[in-house]
């Protein structure tokens, strides 16, 4: 006996095996990302007033990436439709676009990551905070030995001895970049000697719970994009030989991998407003 319904749908369910499998897998993925989104809500609700960041991410860049992913969803559907319409050449073209768009997405995302890993938050010995992007570090810069200096393009804030509204207004310069206070901040080149630095860190996942959930969510999503692109890349390249031997099964594979791709896009459609806009 051979396994039935690997290609043809089972009459009572109307589905072939792999399609049932991918929908179940996606249900599980919904729970995975659902748990992370729930954690986001809990961490955000639990954050002390004024400390949850707004406007830390570049909305035009994020919008561009959203458009890239939505376009890739369209090309994925077109690739599958081309297979259905028996136009293998068009399939090759559309899925080449999908793969290029996926690479484009990962490229833009890396640019955004790089921006965060060069963004420094520096606690000064006098209690003030300096915050900005790295311009350069002198060659002998060493925090432990207190030698050299660092140049950042940014600004300073003073949080000590402030309370109530005064503190909230000062916090907005760091945490709410969409507020009047946040937008009014003037950025300039600051040269800070290592001897004046109490501690410093970049805006990596360790910086606060916002960057933590941002990197975890988008990192996991990026892994899904890369995984999906690898599968589609295989089906576009060596895997497309199956078109000659078993076109129907090949079309099913394009459909199933496409379903996964749409899910990955859908996750981003939730990620974008949650992390960039809210």
């Amino acid at each position, binding site marked *: 006996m051979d396994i*039935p319904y690997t290609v043809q749908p089972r009459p009572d369910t109307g589905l072939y095996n792999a399609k049932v*499998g991918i929908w179940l*897998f996606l249900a599980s993925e919904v*729970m995975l990302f*659902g748990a992370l989104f729930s954690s986001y809500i809990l961490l955000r609700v639990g954050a002390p007033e004024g400390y949850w960041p707004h406007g830390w991410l570049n909305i035009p860049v994020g919008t561009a990436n959203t458009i890239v992913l939505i376009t890739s969803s369209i090309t994925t559907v077109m690739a599958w439709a081309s297979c259905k319409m028996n136009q293998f050449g068009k399939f090759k073209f559309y899925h080449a676009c999908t793969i290029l768009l996926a690479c484009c997405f990962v490229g833009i995302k890396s640019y955004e990551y790089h921006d965060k890993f060069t963004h420094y938050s520096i606690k000064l010995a006098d209690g003030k905070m300096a915050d900005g992007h790295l311009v350069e570090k002198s060659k002998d810069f060493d925090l432990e030995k207190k030698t050299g200096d660092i140049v950042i393009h940014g600004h300073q804030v003073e949080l000590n001895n402030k309370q109530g509204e005064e503190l909230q207004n000062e916090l907005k310069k760091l945490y709410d970049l969409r507020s009047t206070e946040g937008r009014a901040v003037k950025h300039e080149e600051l040269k800070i000697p290592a001897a004046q630095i109490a501690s410093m860190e970049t805006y990596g*996942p360790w910086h606060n*719970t916002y960057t933590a959930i941002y990197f*975890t969510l988008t990192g996991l999503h990026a892994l899904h994009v890369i995984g999906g692109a690898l599968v589609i890349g295989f089906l576009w390249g060596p895997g497309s030989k199956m078109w000659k031997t078993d076109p129907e099964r090949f079309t099913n594979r394009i459909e199933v991998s496409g379903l996964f791709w749409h899910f990955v896009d859908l996750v981003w459609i939730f990620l974008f407003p949650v992390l960039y806009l809210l």
Partner: protein
Amino acid sequence: MQPTAHATSHPAAHEAHHEDLGFLRKYVFSTDHKVIGIQYGVTALFFLFFGLLLMLMMRWQIAHSGEPVPIVGKLLERVLADPTGLYPNPAAKGIISNDLYNSFGAMHGTIMVFMAIVPLAFAAFGNFVVPLQIGAPDMAFPRVNMASYQAYVVGGLIMFVSFFIPGGAAQAGWTSYSPLATSIATDGQTFWLIGMVCLITSSLLGAVNFIATIIQLRAPGMTWMRMPFFCWAQFVTAFLLLLAFPPLEAAGVMQLMDKVAHTSFFLPTGLSIGGALANVSGGGSPLLWQHLFWFLGHPEVYVLILPAMGIVAEIIANNTRKPIWGYKSLVYSALTIGFLSFIVWAHHMYLTGMGTKISTFFQTTTMIISIPSVIILTCFFISLWGGSIRFNTPMLFVMAFLPMFGIGGLTGLPLGFNYSDLHLHDTYYVIAHFHYIVAPGTIFALFAGIYYWYPKMTGRMMSEFWGKVHFWSSLIFMNLIFQPMFKQGMAGMLRRMADGGAQYSQMAHAEYKGGLMPDVMGLHKWILWAAVCLALAQIPFIINLFWSIGHGKKVESDNPWHATTLEWQAPTPPPHGNFATVPEVHRGPYEYSVPGQPTDYTPQNASV
């Protein structure tokens, strides 16, 4: 005649084709659901025994804390020594240190739940039996099935290896509560988390495969309500694994980030470790870990018990020689349990201060979920009524399952009510309660399943005599181990204490009243020797299991138990592809003693 002969030769041809692939493809990298089931079974039984040995060493430490472990003490000292010299030997002079006790405790739980019982109950039995029972040639995705087993092995190896890394295995309990789990400086927890991600991947692949198989590959005529209850139980279990495990995976990723990338998902502001302010950004929530963990943790309980109930249903129907009572009630109860198990998780967290309103909600749902569990057990009890029962080894284990699971379930009620849980929380009472569910409950059902399906796997029976020795001794010693723990727990003895509570005993603090009394403390020695005897009682089983492969009594037919379900209508052992021809199902799964039929069992595929 001609087409039948041709059809019979077809699986044989398949088999021959498979043998061409050589030993590796046939037994190690096999895609055949039966081989994978047996692989899962053997690996899980190994971990089950390993978990038992960990428990024995812990029981020694509890009863004789500070004394070298007999027999294996020297070995522990040798294999656990840290070659880098960074950490002191956790078993110096053969004495289990407190850290090592914590490792053993955490790993006993992890191994037993995630690497022994679930793989045995769900993956091993499910893989071997489900495709046969629904009349399918294999699982829907054979290669995914193989990948599932491989991910399980990798996860198991990572967990196993973590004992031998500098600093040893994870120490924060099988629940790995943060911030404790994150702030222990050793790498054990990192290994634990990576191991868990592999095990979760394995169960995800398995769950997708089981559900797709049951939906898509049922033989013609095998309607939903003609499916054996075992398949229903596995179906619901697969959904629990599919949907409840991912949140733990998310939590695991976050704890791994806490551990490796120094985030603060579960680390609150102002966290102090060892008396000093921890160098973390803070802002995280320890409660978040508990919610995510128990969101898996409670459905997991039903992952442990539902397959066992499935096995019990099959064996009861077969050995009472009458239809199972209330088949539809069983099915709907299993589905109800599956749904409700997702909304009871926080009854593990009454003591966290999450608030009385939330406690009340979860207390209510917890009481509601006991209803379908009781319906299932009641159906099993009523099924016995008026049957002419065959007391063979599988049936004995099942007969013991019923009251033992009853004890486990009923003692859970005081834990489900938040006011009584406040006293019992984290005591030996909890240990006794859930071990009654899992040990003489689930494990007995699994033993029953092994004795029951062994002839289908090997073509030979296991020894009835040694099976009965195994059964009676296991039953007696399990009760001797777990009954005293109820008393200890109600007296207030906390779990997870390396010295078994000696520091809180009346003997240590004569000046105060209310310490643990000598009679409660004295039970430790009693439990230790009962546990040793329980381990010895498994020897007849292990010998029986392996000896019977070559020397057991040969089965005289494909259906030695005179059963109705489809797996017994397949050749023994079933070849690759299972059935000679596609079986056609004409009736429900438990048509025993039907008046007017020539035999007292009517197989599901027997022609009308």
